[in-house]
C-alpha cells in the first residue's frame, strides 16, 4: 500500500542539543526535488527493524534539500534514533497533517508560545514569517524551558534576539547561579507580551497542561478563541487516518490536526481520558 511505504533518507548530520534531545538533518535518496512541507506538519520516521514514530518537522521550509527533525529520546524508537550517525539511513513517510496558520496570520501580530520540546514544531513558523517579514505585524516568541541547560537551539535564539524585527523572550522553570534571564513558567510572560489581542494569531506548542494554562492567559488578554491555535499529540501508527489510534473526540489528530483552533476543540480540551 503506497501510503504505508517509506522513502529512504540519509543522515547528513547528528546534533546533540541537550542531555536528552537531538536533531537529525536528512537528505532524500530518492526524491530529486527535495522535501517540501508546511510548518506544523510531521513525518512518520521509520528506523529499520525497530519501528516508526510521528515527529514534527523542525527545519526551514525554504531549504527543501535538507529535512530536519528534533526529538527527545524517550521511547524505544527515539532511543534507537539517538544512536544515529552520519550516513545512516531511515525511512520517511509524509509530510502529513494540517499546518500552522501562517496564511491566516497574514496582516496580524504573530505570537508563538513554546514549552520545552514544543519549540521544535514552531521553528519552521519562525523561518517562514521572517522570510516573508513584510506580511506580518509584530512577531513574538515566548519560550519556556526547564533549566538553562535545556534551552533548545540556543545559538540560533541568541542570533534572533539581536534582530530588531522579532521579540524573543526566554524563561526557565528553574535556574542556577549564573543565569541572569527570566525564571518562572512561560505563562507569566503573557500578560506583558507586546501584541495586539484583536489582531493576533497565537500558536501554542508544548505539554497539554502548559497549553491549557497558556490559553487561560491569552483569553484573559482578549484573544478570540479562533485566533488561538494548538498542536495536539496522540498515539499514531499510520499518520493517514487508517489505524484509528490518534482519534480525539471526532477528530483524527493525524489528518484533522495536529494543529487545531481552540474554538474547534474547546469542547474536548482538558476532558478526562479522551
Amino acid at each position, binding site marked *: 500500500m503506497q501510503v504505508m511505504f517509506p522513502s529512504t533518507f540519509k543522515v547528513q548530520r547528528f546534533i546533540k542539543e541537550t542531555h536528552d534531545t537531538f536533531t537529525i538533518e536528512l537528505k532524500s535518496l530518492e526524491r530529486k526535488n527535495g522535501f517540501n512541507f508546511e510548518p506544523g506538519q510531521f513525518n512518520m520516521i521509520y528506523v529499520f527493524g525497530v519501528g516508526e514514530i510521528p515527529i514534527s518537522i523542525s527545519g526551514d521550509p525554504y531549504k527543501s534539500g535538507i529535512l530536519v527533525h528534533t526529538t527527545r529520546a524517550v521511547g524505544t524508537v527515539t532511543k534507537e534514533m539517538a544512536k544515529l550517525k552520519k550516513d545512516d539511513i531511515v525511512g520517511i513517510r509524509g509530510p502529513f497533517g494540517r499546518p500552522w496558520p501562517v496564511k491566516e496570520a497574514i496582516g496580524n501580530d504573530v505570537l508563538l508560545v513554546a514549552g520545552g520540546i514544543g519549540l521544535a514544531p514552531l521553528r519552521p513558523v519562525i523561518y517562514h514569517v521572517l522570510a516573508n517579514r513584510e506580511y506580518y505585524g509584530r512577531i513574538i516568541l515566548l519560550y519556556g524551558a526547564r533549566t538553562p541547560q535545556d534551552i533548545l537551539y540556543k545559538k540560533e535564539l541568541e542570533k534572533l534576539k539581536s534582530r530588531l524585527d522579532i521579540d524573543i523572550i526566554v524563561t526557565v*522553570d*528553574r535556574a542556577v547561579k549564573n543565569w541572569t534571564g527570566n525564571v518562572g513558567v512561560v505563562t507569566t510572560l503573557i500578560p506583558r507580551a507586546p501584541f495586539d489581542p484583536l489582531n493576533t494569531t497565537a500558536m501554542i506548542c508544548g*505539554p*497539554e*497542561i502548559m497549553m*491549557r*494554562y497558556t490559553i*487561560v492567559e491569552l*483569553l*484573559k488578554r482578549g484573544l478570540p478563541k479562533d485566533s488561538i491555535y494548538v498542536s495536539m499529540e496522540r498515539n499514531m501508527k499510520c499518520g493517514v487516518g487508517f489505524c484509528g489510534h490518534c482519534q480525539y473526540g471526532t477528530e483524527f489528530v493525524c489528518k484533522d490536526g495536529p494543529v487545531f483552533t481552540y474554538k474547534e476543540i474547546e469542547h474536548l480540551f*482538558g476532558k*478526562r*481520558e*479522551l
Partner: protein
Amino acid sequence: MESLEKVLIQHPFVEGLPSEHIHLIVGCAKNVVFEPGKYLFKENEEANSFYIIRSGKVALEIYSPDVGSIIIQTLGEGDIIGWSWMVPPYQWRFDARAVELTRVIELDGTCLRNKCEADPGLGYEIMKRLASVFEQRINAMRLQLLDLYGKK
C-alpha cells in the same frame, strides 16, 4: 445557623472579626460532606464557592492526558480552599477531590463577594485574611519548586 456560627468563630480565618461581619458570613455558609473520591469542583467550572475544611483531606490536582491527575497539594483540617471566587473570571484552575470523608463549610462565593462589595470594611477584612493564605501557599510552593531533594 446557630451551630454553624459556633463552628465558624473557632476558625482562624474568622477570628477577630466583629460579630456583625460574622453574621454576614454565616448567612452565606452551609455544611457539606464529601464522600471519598468525590470532587468538590473541577478545572474550568465556575468558581462560586469558598471552602473551610472541618475534617478530612482534599487533594488539589491537575489532569494530564498521559499520566492522569497529578496531585499538586493536599489540604486538611482548618485549611481554606479557593480564592478564584474573588478573582475574575471566577473559574477554577485545578480540580479538588476528597481523599477521605471530608466535612467542609461551603461559603457561597458570589454571596460573599457581593457582601464585600456592599461593605468595604468586611471586604478589607476578608482580603487581609486571603492575603495571608496566599502568602503561606506561595512560600510553600516556592520551596516545592526548589526540588530540594532532587538530583543536582
